[in-house]
Each structure stands twice: as structure tokens, then as C-alpha cells.
């Protein structure tokens, strides 16, 4: 089955999310749709999947024009989608999830579970998935859950499979396995559309590459292009993906974590005897697949995690038992992983966001009043210094792009007198240009003699940015290794196997 998008245009108010986009997916071919966040990839796929109606253009299947008014139509036409956030019901079994929506029934409308199980086994065996149809989905590892999604699409007789950023939640090993599955599907004659912004993956599996920038197709790329070439196409200017940094010149170890454990509300142990130290002028990267205790670790450091034991010392002072304000006042700069949720107040102006942490003191406070004159001066200065692209300091944070939002957070956190800098996934979802800027700022902070702790989920970032890498798995530190450790070794550590 051949799928073609012809001249798709989709507008949201004045913003054009897709501008005359063409795309052809042929059977037995992996077509990569490459673009930065906000380039319009997801919008395009939502149009294809019937979730949005296009303002212009048409969808063709085997050269015949089709109209989808909802995902049901798209599925019936043989289009399957593996979503970035799985559309599975965690308390259902694999078989129950897979048959949801087109349940096989016996006489009298009784669910035919045996048939559903058999189907799961059949598809699972065909691709070597080894999935137990009776396993509860919520108890399966993320990579396996993704396979359930794939099975679900295949059982719906999908001949075109769309993978929407499928590797965001996977370990490097799981990613490799997914790549293998995609190749296998290609051999079986499925047309695959693979949406991603990760260049390494594109280079590995793509037969064709379409690059999307600001809603427009900027061209097709040769699958043999280098990462820098692809990135340049994606961004629209020459980029250098390598982090420029001089060798670290570590000083005294001023930040020490000893025997740190933490428990969740339900009593589960989320941090288990964490030990590490960071020297002045050194970047330690915490690597690992998301959800292995990194969030809890940063929360524990800044005094937001409820139940903790052990010791966290900065300049010889204990941080455990202190509240967020006290920790920040000791000179901790903190960039949270979810900047819109935890880093910024979207409805506040840039200026207001810049004083969020110090509204109670001079020079931002003048008696009971906000010192508006100083705030304006401060905000203008930071806007300039951190190259925040906005109409002015009165722009609302919500109106900024992700990169500019992150610059506002950085501007605020780096403008205090720092003794430790903690940043959690500081480049998540940012465009390449902003990533360069954020990396520069982090390296500059290190070079000013401050210990820096970065949480990274992408190996490339971890190895490029870090001076040392600590790998976390299930709340424990598997090991702390130099940043030139081979990817394969790091990948194994991320799966819990110590080096």
C-alpha cells in the first residue's frame, strides 16, 4: 500500500503549522520525517491520522484520494500509529489491550479471549517479540509496551506504520531492538514513516529522509549524510554538534552526596544508597533512562523530596532538612526538567519570571512594594545577556519558544551567587541553536569554578557535556565512569549491568 500526502496545509490562527507538505511512503521503505520540535511533524501526522482536518491538500492511498474524519477511518484504511505516549490501558492484559476497539466475539456477544490470545501469539511469533498475551501491560518494561503498541497496529492490518518519536522513552539497547524490528517490518513489506529528531537513528535505518523546518519541507536528504549535514538542514544554517570545552580543571570536592536514600509517598524506595561527589569546576552527568530516580535525586538536593535519609553536603553544610528557599539561598542554581511545569509561570511576564525566586528581598523588593524600576533594568540586562528572543520584558513566558523559555530559566538561576549548579535535562525539546547556547552556558558555569550536576537521558549529551558520568538504574548508581567510556558500555550500565 502506497501512502501519499500532497500539498498538506494546516493553519492554527495566523500560524502555519504545515505549509504545502508532500510526503510519499512506499511499501518496504522506511521514510524518516526529520525536524526540530515545532517543525510541524506531529501536526502533519495528526492530519494524516484524522485528528486534524487539513486546510488544504489531500491524502492518497494507492493513488486514490481518501478523507479521514477520525482515527477510526485512518485505521480502517490500514494506517497504524505507534504513539510517543502509549495508548494502552495499564491494568489490562496484552491481549485485552490489543483487541480493544475490534474485539473478537463468540456467539451472543461474548468476548473471544482465546482468539485474541492466539492473534497476539501469531504476530508476536512472526516478529520474534516473545510477548505473553496474559501479561499485565503496566508491569511490562517500556520497550515491551511499545511492542504491544506495534502488535496492536499490525493486528489492525496496518500496512503503513507511523512511529511518532518512538525512542524518547527507550534505553540505547531497546532503541537498537526497535531499529531491528523496523527493519524486519520493512522486509515484510510495511511502509514505515519514522518521525524523529535524533540524527543517529535516521542514519541507521532511513531509506528516504524528508526534512521539515518551520512547517515546510526543506528537501530530501541522502541517507548517507553526516550528522552535521542533517542538522544543518534541520536548522537552516551550519551547526556544530560538538560541545566546545576545554579539559576540566577540578578543584576541591565541595558537593558530596553520601548514603542518600529516598522513599515515595507510597513507601517505595526510589533512591537507594546514592554516593558521589562533584569537584569545583567539574561537570558530573547523571545518565540513565528516564524514571530511574533522577527526578527524585534533584528533588532531594533542592529540598523538595519528602522522605529522605543520608547526607547531602554543599561546602560542608548539610542540605537535608532544609527547605527549598534555604537550599537556594546557600547558592544552588536549579533548572528543573519540566520548565513549563516547574520552571516558569506561563502567564507571568519575562520580568516577573526573572524575580520569581527573589521577590521577597532587595533589590527586587522595596519595602512591601515590588521595585519595578530595578526589575525593568534587571530584566532588560538579562534579556540581552542571555539572548532571549522576545518582543520585550513584558512578553508572557507562554508566548516564548521552548529555547527562549529555557534561556529565561537559565538567566534567573545563573544570576544568583552560585556554589552549585543543577540542571535536569536542560536541552530537552530545544532547537539546535538553543542547545548550543545552553551547553555554552553550562560549560562557562563549570569554568567559573562551580560544581555542576546535569541529568541527561540522551547518551550523546552525557558524553559530550560530562567530565564524568554516573549512570543511574532503578534508584541506584550503577557506576561512575569517565566520559570517554564507550557507548556500548554506557548502554549496558543504563540497563543495570555494572561495568
Amino acid at each position, binding site marked *: 500500500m502506497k501512502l501519499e500526502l500532497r500539498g498538506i496545509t494546516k493553519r492554527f490562527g495566523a500560524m502555519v503549522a504545515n505549509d504545502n507538505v508532500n510526503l510519499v511512503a512506499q511499501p518496504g521503505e522506511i521514510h524518516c520525517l526529520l525536524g526540530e520540535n515545532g517543525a510541524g511533524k506531529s501536526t502533519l501526522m495528526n492530519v494524516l491520522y484524522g485528528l486534524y482536518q487539513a486546510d488544504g491538500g489531500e491524502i492518497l492511498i494507492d493513488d486514490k484520494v481518501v478523507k479521514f474524519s477520525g482515527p477510526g477511518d485512518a485505521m480502517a484504511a490500514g494506517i497504524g500509529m505507534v504513539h510517543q505516549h502509549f495508548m494502552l490501558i495499564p491494568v489490562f492484559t496484552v491481549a485485552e489491550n490489543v483487541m480493544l476497539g475490534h474485539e473478537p466475539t463468540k456467539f451472543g456477544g461474548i468476548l473471544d479471549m482465546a482468539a485474541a490470545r492466539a492473534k497476539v501469539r501469531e504476530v508476536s511469533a512472526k516478529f520474534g517479540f516473545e510477548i505473553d498475551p496474559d501479561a499485565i501491560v503496566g508491569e511490562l518494561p517500556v520497550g515491551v509496551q511499545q511492542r504491544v503498541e506495534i502488535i496492536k497496529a499490525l493486528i489492525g492490518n496496518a500496512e503503513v506504520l507511523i512511529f511518532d518519536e518512538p525512542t524518547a522513552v527507550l534505553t540505547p539497547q531497546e532503541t537498537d531492538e526497535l531499529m531491528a524490528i523496523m527493519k524486519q517490518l520493512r522486509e515484510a513489506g510495511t511502509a514505515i514513516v519514522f518521525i524523529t529528531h535524533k540524527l543517529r537513528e535516521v542514519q541507521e535505518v532511513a531509506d528516504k529522509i524528508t526534512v521539515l523546518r518551520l512547517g515546510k519541507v526543506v528537501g530530501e536528504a541522502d541517507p548517507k549524510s553526516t550528522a552535521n549535514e542533517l542538522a544543518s538542514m534541520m536548522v537552516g544554517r551550519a551547526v556544530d554538534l560538538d560541545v566546545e570545552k576545554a579539559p576540566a580543571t577540578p578543584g576541591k570536592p565541595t558537593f558530596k552526596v553520601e548514603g542518600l536514600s529516598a522513599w515515595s509517598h507510597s513507601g517505595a524506595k526510589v533512591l537507594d544508597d546514592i554516593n558521589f561527589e562533584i569537584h569545583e569546576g567539574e561537570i558530573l552527568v547523571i545518565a540513565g533512562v528516564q524514571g530511574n530516580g533522577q527526578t527524585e535525586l534533584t528533588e532531594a538536593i533542592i529540598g523538595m523530596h519528602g522522605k529522605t535519609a543520608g547526607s547531602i553536603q554543599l561546602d560542608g553544610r548539610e542540605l537535608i532538612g532544609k527547605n527549598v528557599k534555604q537550599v537556594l539561598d546557600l547558592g544552588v542554581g*536549579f533548572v528543573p526538567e519540566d520548565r513549563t*511545569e516547574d520552571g516558569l509561570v*506561563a502567564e507571568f511576564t519575562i520580568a516577573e519570571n526573572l524575580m520569581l525566586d527573589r*521577590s521577597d528581598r532587595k533589590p527586587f523588593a522595596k519595602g512591601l*512594594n515590588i521595585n519595578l524600576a530595578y526589575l525593568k533594568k534587571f530584566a532588560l540586562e538579562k534579556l540581552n545577556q542571555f539572548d532571549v528572543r522576545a518582543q520585550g520584558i513584558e512578553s508572557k513566558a507562554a508566548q516564548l519558544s521552548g529555547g527562549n523559555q529555557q534561556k529565561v530559566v537559565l538567566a534567573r538561576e545563573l544570576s544568583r551567587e552560585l556554589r552549585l549548579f543543577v540542571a535536569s535535562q536542560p536541552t530537552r525539546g530545544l532547537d539546535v541553536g538553543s542547545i548550543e547556547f545552553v551547553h555554552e552556558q553550562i560549560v562557562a558555569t563549570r569554568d567559573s569554578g562551580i560544581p555542576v550536576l546535569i541529568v541527561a537521558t540522551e547518551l550523546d549529551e552525557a558524553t559530550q557535556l560530562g567530565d564524568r558520568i554516573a549512570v543511574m538504574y532503578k534508584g541506584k548508581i550503577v557506576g561512575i565512569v569517565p566520559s570517554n567510556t564507550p557507548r556500548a558500555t554506557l548502554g549496558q550500565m543504563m540497563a543495570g549491568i555494572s561495568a
Partner: protein
Amino acid sequence: MKRVMKEFTGGSAFLSILAVIASLVVGGILIALSSPEVQSTATYLTARPSDFFQALWNSVFGAYDAMFRGAIFNYKAQDTLQMIKPITETLAYATPITMSGLGLAVAFRSGLFNIGATGQIIFGAMFAGWVGIYVDLPWYVHFPLAVLAGVLGGGLFGALVGFLKATTGANEVIVTIMFNYIAVLLLGYLLKTPILQAPGAVNPISPPVKDSAKYVFFLGDQFRLHGGVFAMIIAVVFTWWLLNRSTLGFRFRALGHNPNAAKVAGINIGLTYILVMGISGALSGLAGTSQILGSEQVLTLGVAASYGFDAITVALLGRSNPWGVLVAGLLFGGLRAGAVTMQANQGVPVDIVLVVQSLIVLFIAAPPLVRAIFRVKVSKEVAA
């Protein structure tokens, strides 16, 4: 819930005005439907349509004209004093509604859905009333002390809600609703004990407040308008300053928009809850003083009237903006004052005004409905 509150506090003044217009139009239809003349002329509509439309015009215009004469300016009155009396009535009604509405606006802007204005007004009135009735002091000490007591009473009752939320995570909506019952029942109980009941009284009623504790009736005794109206203006300016210029209000708003970010930025969430609810309650407490030291002068079970709930509507209609709340408060004061004349002159039931008020809430709660009626274009579709 959070999204609903955002709709309430974030919408435009334009939509508020549209909601009021729509409500008055629907109100007009109801007035017409309930009019006996309209009903009787409708039976021979095809024979003599002019009768029907005449009756229609008379009923709707007559009702709203009476409302205007009752609420703003009575051009049919004999002397100047009677002519301007309606606007003073409007102001007198608007005073407690606006004060309490300001209190709720503070809470709404801080992300707390305070439904407890009734209870907070009652606590303000009880505290102020007790000082006004039983303390004997020269007026320049007695009056400020009584007002302060009322503000403190409402404030403490509000702060208690904030304290419960901060320490136990109790939902403020449920707590404030329950606190309303506690306040009403406590008042009822105290009005039957010597603590507040007038000696020798059979009914639940307190002795009158001493003259030295009362708001000044600066227009003379035949007017119900009193010095509380100035307190209302001060409260508006204070609330504006608090929310827009003070560092405390900055933290209130940060909490209202994004409690997570506020927490990560080191803002003490628990303490802020207490302060928000304390100030919110204090403003309702001030409304209580306007009742007991101004309009009512004796404590009865009806001291809070329906102002606690009107205040919610007023805060929503005013989009939780202090000046907007003032305008909305004046509107509601006017509706109340006008309703009396409307019933007396035109026989239109007072309930029509309640319907109009309820419709306003409905139209604000359903901005898409208002937008659809008036074809207001949605500026931006939400992008995924």
C-alpha cells in the same frame, strides 16, 4: 477545576459585559412572559397585533425603567433628595458585596476557590458586633477598634482554612462550604445565649451597636448609605496594590498560576495559603462590619444576607480584578435596589433579578456560549 478558575480570572472584560447584556435580554423575555397583559393580548395576537406589541413594550420597558428609577436616578420624584436617593441605595447595597467580592478575588487570583464568604462575613460581623455592643469607649477609639475586630474575625476564620489546607492538604472548597454552616449555626447559637442575645429578647437578636462604634451616616438619617462606602473604596485600592504592586501579591499570583514553579522557586506554599485566605477572609470580615456597624446595627441570623454568594458572582463577573469587582459590585447593588422599585411599581417579581444574576453566572461560566451568541471569534485554536 483549575481550568474553570482560569476561565473565570483570565477572561476579558468584554465577555463580562456581553454576559450582562445577554442576561438582561433573557430577563426581559421572562418579564414579558410573566406579564398578564402580554399573556392576554397574545390570545388575539393575529387579530390585533398592535395590542400585543404595545403590552410587550410596556412590560419590558416599564420594568427596566422602574429598575433604573430604583437604582440610579428617579426622574419622577418630587424633590432632589428623592431623586438622588436611588443611587445612594445602590451604593449601600454595593458596599458589602464589593468588599466581600474583593476578598474572593484575592483568593481566586491565588488559585484558591474560597466559597466561604458567608462564614467570613458572619465572623466579621460577630467580632465587630461584640466590640460595638459591649465595649464602652470614645468613638475615635471605639469605631476603629470595632472595625479592626471585624477584619480580624473574618481574617482568622479565613486563615484557619488556609492553615488546614497547608497542613493537611484539605480541599479549600469543601472546608469553606462546611465553615459556612459552622458560622451560621454558631451565630444562631450565640444569639440564644447571653453572649450576644439582647436581654429580655425572645427572638435571636442582639442589642443594638453603640453609636460610638457606627459608621457615619454622612447624608443624614433618611439615607441608608454610610461611611462604609469609603472603606469600600479604600479596600479596592488596597486590593489593587496588593495584587499588582506588592511582593506578597506577586507570590499570591505565582501560586495561583503555577504552584509547582512557585515551590521550585523557594516560595513557602503553606504560609502563602494561610496569608491568602487570611486576607481574603479579612476583606469579607470588613463586609461584615459594614453590615453590623452600618446597615443593620443589630446582629440577627440574616446579617450576611445573600452577600456571601453574591460576592462569588461579583468576583467572577469582575474577573477577579479589583476595579472589575467594583463595577460588578455596583451593578449588583443596582440590581438589588432596582428590584424593589420594579416590584412596587410594575408588579414584576423580585425573583426576576435573581434570575438575571444567575444567568450572569451561567453566561460567565460558559464563555463559549456567550461567544457563540455574539459570534466573537476565537483568536487562536490550540495547537498540539
